[in-house]
């Protein structure tokens, strides 16, 4: 009797008990697992530590954006894997966005056929597991491509073969100057746009900022070609005979089929989700908004740019960032077709060689976790910035 009374009257104690139980349970679980791990590692004669990252990796990676061979360290191999993950994610995000926007807008088209085709694209590609799509592109579709000697050629500068896609290589002179000029152009565009916004908000003046920005972006880097000694030449891939029957392409850049299959599948799959976001965003802007904008005399482009898009983007961007995040995490499926991403290189090969399961899996998971959390922090910041400020 007294016990029940005590519990109800003393809210502090009542709140404390479940919390204490949860924390204790969690702590004991952690301690239990940690002791087990220590005993197990002791039995196998390995000690916990990250020193192995400096050891020689002595395995090769088929595709690397930075200089790497077997004599480099495990840390370097990790970096190669991470860069490959970022590369395929960036390509996937780029194409998924373009396709998603096109499909999303097509679903709202007043052309019945286009709307239906877009709808079926979404229904088909969304409902097939991504891993099957990757397998399909890699094991079925890309394996049907011709051998190097019968390559599908695009105007003789780029060749598609079963061994990959060979494209011309950019050979730059004074690339740094060019890069600086592009950065300078972006800074200039930022100032032009903020000036245009100010003019619009204070005096109602419309400055064609898009055209000016585009001109700046083309004009400033172009001048470096003319005056500052920047030059760009192309190194084309050429067919080379290795033996009487074996041909290959030399020169240029080779894009491996694993990368093509992965990028294709990731972008086609994620595009369906982005398309749904875009559709929801555009539908989410009330009809009254467009009518109101038209009634104060804005033309069709102005309505789209000043009234519909800012509101639609507010609905579209948060879930789309989430999809970008999903795409990045899904790029880990690369391991299934041996594209050397962080999971295959680090959690696969490196783990097999060193046997350091705990360290390696933790590093891999932490990498993804850092990526996710930084994107969600950015998203929260963006949400706060874009939220409607009620007066």
């Amino acid at each position, binding site marked *: 009797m007294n016990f029940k009374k005590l519990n109800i009257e003393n809210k502090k104690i009542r709140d404390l008990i479940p919390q204490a139980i949860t924390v204790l349970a969690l702590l004991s679980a952690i301690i239990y697992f*940690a002791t*087990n791990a220590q005993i197990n590692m002791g039995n196998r004669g390995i000690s916990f530590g990250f020193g192995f990252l400096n050891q020689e990796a002595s395995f090769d990676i088929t595709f690397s954006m930075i200089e790497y061979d077997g004599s480099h360290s495990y840390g370097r191999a990790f970096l190669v894997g991470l860069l490959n993950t970022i590369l395929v994610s960036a390509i996937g995000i780029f194409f998924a966005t373009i396709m998603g926007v096109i499909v999303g807008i097509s679903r709202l088209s007043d052309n019945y056929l286009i709307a239906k085709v877009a709808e079926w694209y979404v*229904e088909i590609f969304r*409902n097939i597991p991504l891993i099957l799509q990757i397998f399909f592109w890699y094991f079925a*579709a890309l*394996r049907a491509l011709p051998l190097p000697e019968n390559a599908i050629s695009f105007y003789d500068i780029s060749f598609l073969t079963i061994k990959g896609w060979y494209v011309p290589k950019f050979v730059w002179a004074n690339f740094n100057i060019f890069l600086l000029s592009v950065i300078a152009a972006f800074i200039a565009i930022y100032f032009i746009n903020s000036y245009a916004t100010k003019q619009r908000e204070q005096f109602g003046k419309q400055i064609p900022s898009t055209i000016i920005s585009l001109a700046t972006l083309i004009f400033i880097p172009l001048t470096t070609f003319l005056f500052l000694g920047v030059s760009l030449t192309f190194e084309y891939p050429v067919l080379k005979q290795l033996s009487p029957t074996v041909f290959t392409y030399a020169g240029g850049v080779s894009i491996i089929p694993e990368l093509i299959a992965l990028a294709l599948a990731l972008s086609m799959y994620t595009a369906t989700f982005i398309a749904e976001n875009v559709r929801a965003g555009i539908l989410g802007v009330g009809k009254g908004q467009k009518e109101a904008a038209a009634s104060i005399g804005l033309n069709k482009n102005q309505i789209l740019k000043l009234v519909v898009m800012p509101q639609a983007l507010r609905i579209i961007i948060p879930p789309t960032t989430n999809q970008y995040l999903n795409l990045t995490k899904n790029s880990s499926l690369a391991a*299934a077709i041996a594209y050397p991403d962080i999971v295959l290189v680090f959690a696969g090969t490196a783990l097999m060689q060193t046997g350091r399961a705990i360290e390696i899996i933790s590093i891999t998971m932490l990498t*993804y976790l850092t990526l996710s959390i930084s994107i969600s922090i950015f998203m929260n910041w963006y949400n706060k910035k874009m939220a409607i400020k009620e007066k």
Partner: protein
Amino acid sequence: MNLIAKPSKDNIKTYVPIGLFLVSLSFLDVFVNAFFNFNLMGFLPSQLSYFLPLILGYIGFYLIRIEFSGVRSLDILNKNINSNNFNALLTLFTIFIIIKSTPPMLDWFILEANFVGNSKDDCTGDGACWVFIKVWFNRFMYGLYPDSEQWRINTAFLILFTIVGISFFVSEKLKKYFILFLVFVFPFLGIKLISGGSFGLEYVESAAWGGLSLTFIISAFAILFCFPIGVILALGRRSSLPAIKYISIGFIELWRGVPLITVLFMSAVMFPMFLPDGTFIDKLIRVLIAITLFEAAYMAEVVRGGLQALPKGQYEAAKSLGMGYWRMNALIILPQALKLVIPGIANTLLALVKDTPLIFVVGLMELAGMIGLAKTNPKWLGMAMEGYVFAGLVFWVICYAMSRYSQNLERKLSTER
């Protein structure tokens, strides 16, 4: 003068027949070209005959674009596929592509495909070799499960479907018991039946399980467990007790931040290190735990969305009736919150089903894994296309059916608020 006039109601009698004739002619040309490989316009220069269908169709669509023609079917046609020049072009391109791609697809799937036989040599046509699917069908469904014991899997699923089927027709009161049986009793009965080891049934180790039945088993168990865990995590995240709140947040964000494949890797290579020496947990169970915890985190976020959407008045009303925390949540809050997020729940469950093929990383082979195994069989090389098209179709049917069912459920349960 009359000939170049804008199409309008006045010249409808001349323009519409000409327009329709031109449009049909352009479709006919493409159709004959695609199906019979014969170029109707072959007598023209090759450049022209290539673009002619497009030009004819475009002019035809222009001629029949008459606003308020008074003919109902023409108005509907114009509104839907021919509202302006750009739309007419899009329509033409779409129809041309559909016509052009039909014959090769038809050839590959049916006309040139092989259905008879039982080895790769029987596949002589250019199309798909469905013999591959036929021969391996048993393996694709049951994995490496012994042939003589497969009736056990069939029985388990048959019982499941029968109970689900009956429960649609019985009264509400009985339905409750059926659902309780399905959730609390049947899963363990079913798994006992499939794994065997007692009642005179031969023991079949989980490494031999596979194929589509394994997809169903894993999906069913993961759905069963991830739902309650997700609800508890969501409640935990909304709790006013700081320790529970932050532990829940940490747990949810940890799982949501990493890809499933690393979680499965963890369950395969890292988890055994955390167990006392000599203990061994079955691979299937480890995978099941990993998938369940992973999806529970996503489920928690979906349920949290529903909890947040409920007006505060619901909580206050429940409390003012003297309900405690658990009664309030079970009777007032959750029924409403869960109904709000049915689409989200369905999407999470769909994602779960679509994630099951990933178990290949730990060496378990469901449908996609079995196809990977079959296509590397020396007698059946080069069958990747057939295998993955088949697997894609199977998964598509399952996922599409699930998403349609969730849409129906949402409509059925929606109440005016």
